[in-house]
């Protein structure tokens, strides 16, 4: 039942916000985000004591076709729920000193997105999962569309069509599975135990994989991503990159692997090769970027490519590493985009070569930014390190050559990140550079929060691994 309560709070927030006073919208959204975060802590305690039982919720919804509302949590889902509920308050808070037009609607959409994301992470019936998957698309579409820059109509339409194309293929896959199941059910427990024959798994795999690969995005399904990240408002980009793309990687573990173990093994070499190619490709493109947000977008492709590759090694280390890295990447990328937003807010530009000398103007900001950057390039003791280490290790175990190629991403990552940092933050101020105003209280809170998370998870990765280990063991058994 706890799962319903987790879902209910953001939904309530979304509805209340729609009718809220424009001035009250931001604090109200934050209060609800914090309530949800505190509730998550409670849920975590309950999970540690009683396991997943307390979260189980099942209720018949439609009798023809047989659809049950089924929510539940295991360690992996809980990790995603924690990530979502941790990041949303930060994302809300980060907009406190910004002028947003029509804030009530904007924050209502964010809360609704929050609700849909939680639904995706907790749904255990194929239909419910699919519906939440689609629901998550609508608010982010309008956020990116309405509050983005002048290019956003064109860019977001591409994003919308792309992701919808993927989800429709997935719907087709679900329908096919539903017809094939002897007792016509899309419940996760049924799907993960009664596999269709491997002849079907071969092609059904791609119906699902396409949907996930577009969301993640894995090259060559990524072309919507950099432009969308750039055009969307920063809070939208944070939602997209921090949480929404985790929908894809999470779904690989929750749905693809249990339903199509044979398909996973069959396509494993191709997907890993694609992912590894993507890592290198995106890293090289990132080096050439002049726009800060685009650079982060490509670096994000590189990181999630590694996560996907790790999952597809189908080993405990790979999956464990991918989970650690999913959490770490969510936190880091939100930090990166937030820093970019602060720079944009002060300097009015994100072109790297037009920046410079920020360290002289605002040493605190430079320090904060550096820590986030170091987290992203996976320095030991930061959260990026543990996950990346485990992922590369699993890749090496799978194939030394692929591992070696993927390993270059660490070097390339350091190259583009540090190069960017050097040009944008260090050095002298450029001619037309605007003054750098001091950080506001809400910006400090967000940055300090993110940095503490970076260190906590870097020093105690056991928090994550202990949580997810039982669930991973169960997953591995399915293969």
């Amino acid at each position: 039942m706890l799962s319903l309560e987790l879902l209910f709070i953001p939904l309530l927030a979304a509805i209340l916000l729609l009718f809220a006073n424009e001035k009250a919208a931001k604090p109200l959204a934050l209060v609800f985000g914090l309530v949800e975060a505190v509730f998550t802590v409670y849920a975590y305690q309950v999970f540690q004591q009683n396991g997943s039982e307390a979260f189980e919720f099942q209720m018949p919804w439609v009798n023809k076709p047989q659809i049950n509302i089924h929510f539940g949590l295991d360690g992996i889902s809980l990790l995603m729920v924690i990530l979502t509920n941790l990041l949303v308050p930060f994302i809300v808070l980060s907009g406190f000193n910004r002028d947003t037009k029509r804030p009530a609607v904007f924050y209502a959409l964010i809360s609704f997105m929050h609700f849909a994301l939680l639904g995706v992470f907790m749904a255990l019936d194929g239909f419910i999962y699919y519906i939440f998957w689609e629901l998550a698309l609508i608010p982010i579409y309008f956020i990116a569309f309405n509050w983005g820059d002048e290019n956003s109509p064109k860019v977001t339409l591409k994003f919308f069509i792309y992701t919808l194309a993927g989800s429709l293929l997935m719907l087709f896959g679900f329908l096919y599975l539903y017809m094939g199941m002897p007792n016509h059910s899309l419940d996760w427990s049924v799907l993960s135990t009664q596999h269709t024959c491997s002849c079907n798994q071969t092609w059904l795999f791609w119906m699902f994989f396409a949907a996930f690969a577009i969301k993640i995005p894995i090259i060559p399904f990524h072309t919507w991503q950099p432009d969308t990240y750039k055009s969307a408002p920063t809070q939208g980009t944070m939602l997209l990159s921090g949480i929404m793309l985790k929908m894809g990687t999470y779904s690989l573990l929750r749905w693809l692997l249990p339903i199509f173990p044979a398909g996973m093994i069959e396509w494993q070499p191709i997907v890993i090769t694609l992912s590894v190619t993507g890592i290198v490709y995106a890293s090289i493109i990132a080096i050439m970027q002049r726009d800060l947000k685009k650079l982060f977008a490509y670096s994000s492709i590189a990181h999630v490519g590694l996560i996907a590759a790790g999952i597809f090694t189908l080993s405990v280390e790979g999956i464990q590493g991918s989970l650690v890295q999913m959490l770490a990447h969510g936190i880091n990328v939100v930090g990166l985009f937030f820093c970019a937003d602060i720079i944009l807010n002060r300097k009015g530009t994100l072109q790297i070569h037009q920046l410079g000398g920020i360290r002289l103007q605002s040493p605190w900001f430079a320090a904060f930014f550096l820590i986030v950057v170091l987290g992203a390039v996976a320095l030991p003791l930061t959260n990026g390190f543990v996950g990346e280490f485990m992922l590369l290790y699993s890749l090496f175990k799978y194939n030394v050559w692929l591992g070696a190629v993927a390993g270059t991403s660490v070097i390339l990552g350091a190259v583009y990140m540090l190069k960017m940092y050097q040009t944008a933050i260090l050095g002298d101020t450029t001619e037309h550079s605007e003054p750098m105003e001091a950080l506001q209280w809400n910006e400090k809170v967000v940055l300090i929060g993110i940095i503490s998370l970076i260190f906590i998870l870097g020093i105690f990765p056991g928090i994550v691994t202990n949580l997810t280990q039982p669930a991973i063991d169960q997953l591995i058994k399915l293969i």
Partner: protein
Amino acid sequence: MNTLIYTSVLGFGLMVLEVIKLRKWISPILILGLSILFGINIHDWNQPGSFMGNMLEVNNFTVGFNALAIFITLLILMLASEYYADEEHHISDYMAIMTFVLCGAQMMLGYTNLVMFFIGVETLSISLYALSGSKRFDIKSNEAGFKYFLMGSFASGFLLFGIALVYGATQSFDLNKIAEYASGDVVTPLFLTGVLLILFALFFKVSAAPFHFWAPDVYEGAPSIITAFMSTLVKVVGFAAFYKFLHVFAYLIPLKFEWLIVTVAILSLVTGNLSALAQDNFKRLMAYSGISHAGYLLIGLIGAATFPSSSILYYGFGYALSTIGAFSIAMAVFKSTGSEDISAFNGLGKKNPILAACLSATMLGLAGIPPFAGFFGKFYIFSEALQNGHFYLVLIGILSSMVGVYYYMKVVIAMYAKPANETKIEISLTNQLVMWLCLVLVLIVGIMPSLVTGLF
């Protein structure tokens, strides 16, 4: 049966009101009358019967679809009372003819005899020819009425000819006798030709490609309210009648006509969706979207032998209410801006955020995105087709849904992304009421599909 009689009485009553100079009372009386009719219709629930020497039947199927048809008419007439507010001296004509369309629709739903079917189709069509051309001084409306009449007459000709051939083969107009004949061992070419011709006429009525050429022009030229009426009521009733007709040939379809329906379905999906991409006029866009929806429904009809009629009702419900909701807003926009192009919606998101949000919701509903009713409607159809092994048909259906999203989104983009023009959009209370009613119902039924699909 009573419903049909009282509907006709209501229609004539309206004309009498005109004669005795009670013009102002027409709209309230009509709305009250339709609500009563709705009740009378529901009263027949679970009381099946056969009337007029076995020409009309009443059962839960007819009651369900009748209820939807009456409800659509009610919504449309509410909009119409607003739309025709400036043309008071013609209002009784318009309202009465629209009521007669409903009569025709009821005959098409309840027929058990092909003669009754033909009378129903003609009552419905002739009323609509008149309505499409009802803007007498507008050349486009004239063109629409004339074009619809010409093409429609051909279709009626086909229908009549087909019925005659079927009669020749079976010596009966009665559906049960025809069904008996069709399930027998010997089926003559005469009979098959007859059925084929009837199918052509039906394809025409539901505007499936390649029998769709009239639809865009007629939809564009006809007064907006009539476009909304045609695209909802006629389509839903047409498909119900189609379903009933195919049901008779439960054994014959897979053998003889499946290829035909499959081809028409694919053609409708492809032409409907692809042509819609290129439209700038909102009403033409809706016409092509209607053609593509005909394609989806045809996929459902292929399995008419096993496909539950409640799913057709569900799809019709979602489609009709989303469309009426969209038109209730669009008509207000057309009236204020004087343009019927998609560009008329430019900047609506800034000028009137609530209207824009509602219109976006109806567009998403038409595109079949959950939680609106359009999603489960498509879902039922696709899952049924997959069960019958129509693998590629479903794939084409899904691909064309994707294209659909693109052009429905065009309207949304116009509202939010394009700069606003000066005109202020005024929307009357009636339109708002209809809009909210449609939206809430589509949402409720989208979240709880069993409300409709559990009916029969």
